[in-house]
């Protein structure tokens, strides 16, 4: 589908005097799915925003296909790079369908509205997130989980080749968690690159082939998910004792007391 490569070169990110990562080197290739794990407040969101070009790094750079993010026009960037934010600061006054349709904004050919194809893509995304019944509801009357699904549908409508997803599973019930992860797995099979902040190690294990761990002292660890998702690494990461269970061949980690 594509050969989009998102790279971090000697990336040093800090926010409000707090160091998040030092000289991070990593490459996200097509068809890879990365999970970002770490304690609350460790800087997962800020790192993701830096990779999306929404936060300026202290040093180093993020590049897309070899060219720095800043060298790409914002619109051009948005055609390839989709971002799911953890929280949205604005208010949207329209209905759910109009909200999802905004995902086509970077691809819009005409200044005067969206094409039939744009609307079809929005409909498909609404169906994928089981939102067809809510498409005419005002967006600000949705519940937290419905809002989250609408935000994911908007990102899907964007048809990006690389997605940076900040806590895509927040507010979702179990069924929609599974369904959403299935949608992402399908994107990955189609050659999409994904990076998502997760708190559930099980989903990281099932869906991610790579993991990036951000530690509270500002160092980062990344590599294949199978190698890093072990009790030793996770106990060091979350600084709490964990119990390991094995259910039908899957490893579950639960916080011990």
């Amino acid at each position, binding site marked *: 589908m594509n050969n989009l490569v998102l790279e971090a070169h000697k990336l040093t990110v800090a926010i409000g005097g707090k160091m998040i990562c030092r000289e991070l080197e990593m490459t996200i290739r097509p068809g890879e799915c990365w999970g970002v794990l770490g304690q609350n407040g460790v800087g997962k969101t800020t790192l993701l925003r830096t990779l999306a070009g929404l936060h300026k790094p202290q040093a180093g750079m993020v590049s897309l296909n070899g060219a720095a993010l800043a060298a790409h026009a914002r619109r051009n960037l948005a055609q390839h790079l989709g971002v799911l934010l953890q929280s*949205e600061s*604005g208010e949207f*006054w329209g209905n759910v369908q109009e909200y999802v349709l905004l995902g086509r*904004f970077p691809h819009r050919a005409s*200044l005067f509205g969206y094409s039939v194809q744009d609307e079809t893509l929005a409909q498909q995304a609404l169906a994928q997130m089981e939102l067809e019944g809510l498409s005419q509801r005002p967006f600000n009357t949705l519940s937290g989980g419905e809002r989250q699904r609408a935000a994911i549908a908007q990102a899907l409508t964007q048809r990006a080749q690389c997605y940076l997803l900040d806590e895509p599973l927040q507010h979702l019930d179990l069924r929609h968690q599974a369904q959403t992860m299935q949608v992402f797995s399908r994107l990955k099979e189609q050659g999409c690159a994904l990076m998502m902040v997760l708190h559930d190690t099980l989903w990281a294990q099932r869906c991610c082939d790579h993991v990036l761990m951000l530690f509270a002292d500002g160092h980062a660890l990344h590599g294949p998910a199978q190698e890093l998702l072990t009790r030793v690494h996770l106990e060091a990461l979350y600084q709490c004792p964990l119990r390991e269970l094995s259910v039908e061949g899957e490893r579950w980690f639960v916080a011990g007391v």
Partner: protein
Amino acid sequence: MLCTVPLSLGFGLMNGSLPLAPIEVWHALLGNNDDTATTVLWELRLPRVLAAFVCGGLLTLSGVLLQALLRNPLADPYILGISGGAAVGALAAMLLGAGLAATQLSSFTGASLAIVTVFGLGFRHGERNIYRLLLTGVVLSAGCGALISLLLTLAQGDEVKGMLFWLMGDLSHAQGLPFAWFVLLAVGLCATVFSGGLDVLAGGLDKAAALGVAVGLWQAGLYFAAAVLTVTALQLGGSIGFVGLMIPHAIRLIGVSAHRWLIPLSALLGGSFLVLADTLARTLWSPLQFPVGVFTALLGVPVLLWLLSRRS
């Protein structure tokens, strides 16, 4: 909804100290004969109605743009201190006994200074915090309020009346009508063309940037456009409140929120609303003429309250 435009214009043209029947208005507009009605209509009433319409359109459009800029449906030119700066400028000139032209120039300067201050201070520490911008505007408005009180205290009896009328909004000395219409049409057209970006921007800065909007450029452009609209409206009719806040809000409550429709509808309905308010203000207790600003508030508050209560 659009039929409110001809209805309000007709209402404005018919009523006044010399009431005209619809047919008389029609004949006078065609200019067939040379009677009093024609003179009154062309010399007095038509300019007044057109001034009210354009002034309402300007204020409403300015409100829509500021609401998209601040992502808050309750933002308007008054909250951001633009009209406060203009009022201080105008009153200071009146106090010094300046003529009309000098007063207008001075009010423009005051508004521009307020814009530069809010824009400069509000965005200096980082573009992400919209509340800093809002608060800068609120603080500046409060400061301007104090300066206005001071100027009113210093003024003599006759001057006070003129100043009060300016503060409350007065369309009887409207000047620069063609320019105001040009501003309304030009900015309205531009805003409609770029309305897709406004929809995205209203959803938040990060979101807009992630969807490919050059946020900094858009913010500066919007602020500038809103400022030009407000200053033009202020020069035409003094401080007239409530229009920029109420009309866009009312249109959103009836279910239109895409800026493609919101912008033209706001301009048209805002214009009609002010024509209506101005006509009532000058006819209800004729020969006394009330400041139109009082009427926009008296009409606006109940309507807004009704819309809000209906919603919840």
